[in-house]
């Protein structure tokens, strides 16, 4: 009985494209209507499905055909349930793809379908650049210097709310920069929400192709893309090392052996 639901959906879609399926789609729909009112299917649609599938299975394996025939009701309930489960999950995946650019924002590396994704899976494309963001200063120069504020190096993070690589990087960035509070200036810019003109200019300067996330450290170091390929621990150490370098080792963690080693590599 329940099999009518799946059949109605599938045949209904097929019927849009081909007249061949419309008659049987109507039959399936009438079966669903009868089922909703707890009445048996008057055309025997479910029986027809059972016998046709059994006949086909019999040609391949009689035992399986027998199992299918005898357990049709149970199998059709399971099949219908899994149909709706997988349909729901597919819809969720398509939504993620449209909004986040990846099927699985939590673990984007699991998604095989990622339009515009970079092969290293660390960058999101961003095309929402405003062409008019700039700060004019004397003699047609454009002021993008913002490496330090009151002697403290400025650390920029550019990302969006929907980019999963930004989602990966942001907490690590905030976590590490928080340790240097007072010794650095941190500016996190979600470029799909707020677009302060200076920040946008800096972003365009460093991310010429508009990829995100972008981290700019004290006007000396920058990276386009997240540190996912490094892994969380290494990324924390790298960020710590660079921040130690530009702020002259202000915190105890800069003496850590691993951090010191990385710092020496800069």
């Amino acid at each position: 009985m329940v099999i009518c639901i799946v059949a109605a959906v599938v045949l209904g879609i097929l019927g849009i494209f081909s007249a061949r399926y419309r008659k049987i789609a109507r039959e399936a729909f009438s079966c669903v209507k009868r089922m909703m009112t707890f009445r048996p299917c008057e055309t025997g649609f479910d029986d027809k499905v059972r016998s046709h599938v059994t006949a086909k299975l019999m040609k391949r394996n009689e035992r399986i055909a027998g199992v299918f025939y005898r357990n049709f009701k149970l199998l059709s309930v399971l099949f219908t349930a899994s149909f709706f489960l997988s349909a729901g999950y597919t819809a969720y995946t398509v939504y993620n793809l449209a909004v986040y650019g990846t099927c699985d924002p939590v673990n984007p590396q699991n998604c095989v379908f990622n339009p515009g994704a970079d092969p290293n899976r660390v960058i999101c494309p961003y095309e929402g650049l405003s062409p008019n963001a700039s700060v004019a200063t004397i003699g047609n120069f454009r002021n993008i210097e913002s490496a330090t504020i009151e002697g403290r190096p400025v650390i920029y993070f550019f990302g969006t709310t929907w980019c999963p690589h930004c989602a990966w990087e942001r907490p690590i960035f905030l976590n590490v920069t928080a340790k240097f509070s007072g010794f650095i200036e941190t500016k996190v810019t979600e470029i799909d929400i707020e677009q302060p003109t200076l920040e946008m200019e800096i972003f365009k300067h460093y991310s010429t192709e508009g990829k995100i996330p972008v981290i700019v450290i004290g006007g000396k170091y920058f990276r386009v893309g997240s540190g996912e390929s490094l892994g969380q621990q290494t990324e924390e150490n790298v960020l710590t090392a660079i921040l130690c370098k530009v702020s002259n080792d202000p915190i105890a963690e800069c003496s850590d052996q691993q951090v010191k080693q990385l710092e020496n590599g800069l």
Partner: protein
Amino acid sequence: MKPTFIYSFSKCFVMDVKRIREDFPVLQNSKGIVYFDNACMSLKPRPVIQKMLEYYEQYTACVGRSNHRLGKLATEKYVEARKTIAKFVNARKEQEIVFTRNTTEGINLLANSLDLKKGDVVVSSDREHNSNLIPWQLVKERKGIEHRIVKSRTDNTFDLEAFKKSMSRQVKLVTMVWTSNIDGYTLPVREIVKTAHDFGAVVLLDGAQAVPHSKTDVRRLDVDFLAFSGHKMLGPTGTGILYGKYELLERLQPFVVGGDTVESTTYETHKFLKPPERFEAGLQDYAGIIGLGEAARYLENIGMENIESHEKALNKTISQRLLEIPNLQFVGVQASELRGGIISFNLKGMKYHDVSLMLDRNHGILIRSGQHCAHSWFNSHGIEGSARASLYLYNTQEEAELFAEAVKKISKLGK
């Protein structure tokens, strides 16, 4: 293919089934099919198709009306067909053969033409096809007759004692199926006719399944009316015959009236023709009837006794093999000797429609499934329906073996 040898009292007949099969275009065109739905529709041999084509291609004209050469030729062929069929059933004269569209129409003609009144009794068996049940239910509603059903024995054979008990002087008509389309069981019609006549009742037999499969001698049987179908005896679709004793036909009021049923009319009156024309209103299916005449001739050449023996032998093979299947139940009479060429059965754990569908899709075996237009019998026995294989002269022993093997395979699904 081995020819079937049939031994009669004085000589051997050889029915060359292989040669017969070559006459049937459907068997040549749909290779690999096993046609076991003859109780519903028989296949048509080329001579029958040819005769119909001849009418359409060479002498298409009105019969019994037009005075030109084509009309005369068509009339000649039509009359010849009527004579052939009269001879086929051994009627006294060809005027005792009325052409109808099918058995159903023949029975309806009688139901509407017989002079039945309130208080009259019509007796039937409990295994009637709807065509020999519903007309009498309607007569009961419209005229207030009593419709008595004779219950069969528990083994599904006809209860002659119960029938005799049901008879009385009020019984005007005994109308029964000769050979049942449910299970191929043949009623003891000779005794039925004799008993009915002893009580002054007339007898109508539904011969749809009997006449095509065994020798029919209406005079020997002394039956008063016999309805049967052309399409079940290799004849074209849309053809049927109602045989009636002439003196009885003369007394019947016509049912469908109009052109060619009257000698003359005025605006107020009409003068009916004699039988059979009185009952054949309007233009008939001339091509069909001429083809039907050829079908009767074709069957006569082969011999009805040969066909009957052939079917019984096939049924025996099938029944023996089917008995080996543990979850198979025969429907109706159990013994194969009591069945002609029809085998009705169910497989436990399976729906009958599934059985027929799988036989068709996976094995190319064509049978019917359902209630076979005999809902009353199935309802009274609490059986939902059955799968039914029905045989004819062109089926072979190999087909019988194939069928049994296929049913065995399918039976495993229901275990």
